[in-house]
């Protein structure tokens, strides 16, 4: 009889093991679309409809938008109102992790692999090597599968795992406007919300073009830590040197660098350029894009949370606590020792479970209420 302790005896962190699966010719897909809906929907389609044994690299860019993780709260990670005023879409992706800002200065990569071949540290190394090939030799990895140059994050990652396959996707800040990153990823509710949803880990960001002209300060303690942040193994081959940073860190060169890394690992690949028109013609991609942009997915998938604030009517001063499940207000509580007015009670009743969405209700909040102090309403 087989030992029963088999599963328990297994080490939690296993080393990369030689994959049992036989991989077939790798493919490198590039998209000409700047639509986050179509690119993400196509990514999901590749994930579920191409043969598992094909190692796929998919490279794309999106127009200005904020992309949050599968289990995040949009009101906590960004400001839907600000995004609406800028015309930037809010997107909830299917993978885990935190919120990111995209613009065409950011390149996205997605590495789709059989679950048995999937190994996050190895893939992170590949991304770091691509950055080094472009000419930024200081790039290094951290333990969260991100890529940094000194203290600045240039690439973040997230993962999706299904029964037989997994993907590792992420961002690469080539020339993204880092001011907009900070602006877009600011919440007006963060001090007043209680939630179990996934919280983003904020890091200072700078794009690769900016970093090209940036040197760490020579004095101070940072220099002492130098050995701990060294880049690791050098890459075998570099892309041709380009003097001007704005021409060194382009999407096209990033595609070349990632393709090189992919082919160095999996062998010569098949290159496929996909247009948005071709994506639209695939019924499942079209359906997926519509689903991704639906209210039920973007807001309706928000994990349960509570929010302290006021009712969305300027003359009502009562402090209240909203309980919100899947983007719908399920209860509005008044703190003890406070007798709410009839108007407040009536409005509270109307808001609970009503068709008026939480977003619409919150959009009416006077600006002063959004900077409410943290004092306990009870």
């Amino acid at each position, binding site marked *: 009889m087989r030992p029963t302790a088999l*599963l328990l005896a297994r080490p*939690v962190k296993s080393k990369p093991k030689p994959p049992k699966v036989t991989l077939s010719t790798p493919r490198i897909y590039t998209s000409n679309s700047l639509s986050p809906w179509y690119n993400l929907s196509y990514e999901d389609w590749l994930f579920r409809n191409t043969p598992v044994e094909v190692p796929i690299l998919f490279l794309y860019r999106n127009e200005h938008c904020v992309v949050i993780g599968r289990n995040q709260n949009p009101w906590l990670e960004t400001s839907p109102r600000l995004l609406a005023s800028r015309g930037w879409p809010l997107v909830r992706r299917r993978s885990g*992790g935190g919120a990111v800002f995209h613009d065409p200065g950011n390149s996205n990569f997605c590495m789709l692999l059989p679950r048995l071949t999937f190994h996050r540290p190895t893939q992170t190394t590949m991304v770091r090597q691509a950055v080094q090939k472009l000419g930024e030799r200081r790039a290094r990895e951290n333990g969260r599968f991100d890529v940094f140059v000194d203290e600045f994050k240039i690439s973040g990652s997230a993962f999706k*795992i*299904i029964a037989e396959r997994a993907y590792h996707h992420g961002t690469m800040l080539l020339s993204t406007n880092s001011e907009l990153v900070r602006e877009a990823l600011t919440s007006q509710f963060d001090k007043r919300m209680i939630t*179990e949803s996934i919280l983003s880990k904020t890091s200072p960001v700078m794009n690769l073009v900016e970093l090209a002209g940036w040197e760490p300060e020579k004095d101070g303690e940072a220099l002492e830590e130098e050995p701990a942040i060294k880049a690791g193994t050098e890459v075998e081959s570099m892309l041709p040197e380009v003097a001007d940073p704005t021409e060194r860190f382009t999407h096209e060169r990033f595609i070349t660098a990632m393709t090189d890394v992919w082919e160095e690992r999996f062998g010569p690949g098949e290159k496929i350029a996909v247009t948005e028109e071709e994506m639209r013609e695939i019924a499942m991609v079209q359906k997926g894009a519509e689903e991704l942009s639906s209210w039920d997915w973007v807001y309706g998938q928000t994990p349960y949370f509570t929010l302290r604030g006021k009712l969305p009517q300027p003359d009502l001063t009562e402090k209240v606590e909203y309980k919100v499940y899947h983007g719908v207000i399920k209860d509005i509580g008044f703190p003890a020792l406070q007798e709410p007015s009839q108007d407040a009670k009536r409005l509270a009743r109307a808001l609970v479970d009503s068709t008026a969405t939480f977003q619409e209700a919150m959009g009416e909040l006077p600006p002063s209420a959004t900077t409410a102090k943290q004092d306990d309403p009870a």
Partner: protein
Amino acid sequence: MSLFRASFVARRVLRAPRAFPARSWAVRTLTTKKYTTAHEWIIYDDATSTGTTGITDYAQSSLGDVVFVELPAPGSELLAGEPLGAVESVKAASDIYSPVSGTVEEVNEILASEPGLLNKSPEERGWLARIKMSNPAEMDELLTEEAYKAHCENEEH
């Protein structure tokens, strides 16, 4: 109708290689545990036609620290192989599929505030949901403990 189904399955279970004490049969508390290739387990209670499901120890160890668990609302209708919920661990979102069809009777509320229970006790205290099964015969389609272990070993080497 449901009584008939339950006893039908119970007899099949009795014929399965696992031996049960005769008195269990007498008080009708027969339970059987099965697995899926997607690393879920389910314990079926013949007396109530209810299955309790969760993820296996193998699954939790490959996921790493679970930081979020999303479960269906009680009353939700599930189909075997369709999403039951989702877990998130170190930036990885993983789907959990329902091993069987039926109606969600109860979910493990503790997981909302203590998702790490999935790592600590995946096959006991970290159970995910209790499902009133609409077709208990689906249990026959799932893997036995031995078959599941063989499946994991295959993944391992």
